């Protein structure tokens, strides 16, 4: 069986979108194209766990077939890698569930199977999660309120790369920040197998208070198709994928 590539958008934000189209709609569109959208809402230390304005976080992830999590800055590293891995499992399990429905009939899901059988299926899902290739477009909100959080975001992304590069499967990341200087998003790092060297390129703070989450998600979604277009032009682009 040929191993597939999982595609994810990871959105890190601390606030509500206030410009452009509805981010949930864009997330739903991305999900239709086989990209899952995960959202991490970063809380200020003095915020409650259910703050105003961050309900959007859960909505975007729900429409995007991904996972959402609200988290205080200091727990960001653990959360980023956990959300990414859980989302991989969720996507793979979705595939397996669809296959099961084909075999067992439309009413059957994994929960209808006896624990022993379920355990065997989870073993397969785990194997797939370990060996499949993964592509993540990281989308970082750099609007003014994120000022004090960017250092932690950078560390969390380096940490994510440590976790994912311990897998057998290959990884590719790229990073965008939004809002960009002239466009909705700004490229920070092009497709790369590791994130250890992002210190030098990590974004300076954008000015202005707009948070165009919807348009940014749309741009992020296009990064996958751009790449597959390029891939068809240059067959040997595997050179920038690190061999695990």
């Amino acid at each position, binding site marked *: 069986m040929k191993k597939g590539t999982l595609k994810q958008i990871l959105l890190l934000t601390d606030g509500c979108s206030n410009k452009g189209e509805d981010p949930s709609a864009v997330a739903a569109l991305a999900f239709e194209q086989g990209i899952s959208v995960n959202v991490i809402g970063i809380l200020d230390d003095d915020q409650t766990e259910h703050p105003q304005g961050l309900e959007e976080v859960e909505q975007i992830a729900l429409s995007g077939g991904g996972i959402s999590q609200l988290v205080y800055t200091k727990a960001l590293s653990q959360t980023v890698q956990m959300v990414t891995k859980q989302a991989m499992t969720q996507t793979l399990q979705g595939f397996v569930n669809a296959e099961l429905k084909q075999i067992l009939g439309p009413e059957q899901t994994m*929960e209808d199977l006896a*624990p022993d059988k379920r355990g065997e299926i989870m073993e397969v899902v*785990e194997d797939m999660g370990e060996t499949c290739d993964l592509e993540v477009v990281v989308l970082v909100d750099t609007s003014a309120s994120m000022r004090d959080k960017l250092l932690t975001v950078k560390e969390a992304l380096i940490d994510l790369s*440590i976790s994912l590069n*311990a*897998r*057998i499967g290959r990884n590719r990341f790229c990073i965008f920040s939004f809002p960009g200087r002239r466009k909705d998003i700004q490229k920070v790092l092009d497709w790369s197998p590791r994130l250890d060297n992002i210190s030098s390129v990590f974004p300076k703070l954008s000015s202005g208070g707009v948070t165009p989450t919807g348009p940014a998600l749309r741009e992020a979604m296009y990064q996958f198709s751009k790449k597959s277009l390029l891939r068809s032009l240059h067959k040997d682009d595997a050179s920038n994928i690190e061999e695990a």
Partner: protein
Amino acid sequence: MMHQTSKKLNLVPNTIIRGKWHNHVYTIRRKLGSGAIGSVYLCTINQKYAALKISDKSTSMMMEVNVLKSLNKVQGVCLGPSLMDVDDWIAPDGQAYTFYVMEYVRGYSLQQFLSRNGREWVGVLMLQLLHDLKKLHEAGWIFGDLKEENLLVTIDTPSRVRWIDVGGTTQMGRAIKEYSEFYDRGYWEMGSRKAEPSYDLFALAMVFISLYYPKQFAKDKHPQRLLVKKLQDITTLRPYRPALQKALLGEYQTAGEMEQEISSIISRMRPRHTSRQKTSGPAAAAFVPEVAGLAVVSAMYYLFSLLLP
């Protein structure tokens, strides 16, 4: 700290849990603890105690069950609690939960045990842990989330370290499934998160360091230098320092190598040395030589050193 969308299940004492598939009936006694994935309860079945872990995250639970099953297959040592049952429970409100039942291990935390029994147990506990890790690694597994909270020393004699949560156990060569920052060499920028023996040995060294820094500490600009310094500052661990430092720096390829060095360190220790340390132990502290002459004190010292193993 994290926002969970799943419902919080809280079982009150005397709740009856009947399995959907196997029909075994468990009576909940009290909550033992809860973690990221689910809660563990003390329960009874046929008048016997057992530990029951329950959660609505069926997939994560099944992954844990898979690990427990493979560990139970490793012959000759008890790696982790033994698994008794896996089943689903439909709560009265219709919500489905997955649970598994395992052996109930009664024990002290390492911290409690060492303060009750004295620091000469440090080396023994290290050896026990290394012995089990060696067996686990030989079976192709890495423990992963090795930390103080995941270990107990049995109350029943002989005292033995037991692992109570095997959720992080990962097949060798893969990415560590679950870890805690303080014990994770990736966090300290001292290695990868690939499941290999040296990953567990690093965490093992951190377990013993953490005993002396109950509030733990965060990394600074030079994580490696900081850890070595923190280790050096613990006088109790001085005899084991060379071995622990090598574990931190990833210089052991196998748990067996470290086990050998620790056991040779222990055999080199003078019994006289141990008895002098004992002054801070509970037995000696109770003995207050207020009026007694110096000769009596030293005689008692001598007797104590004979009594101690």
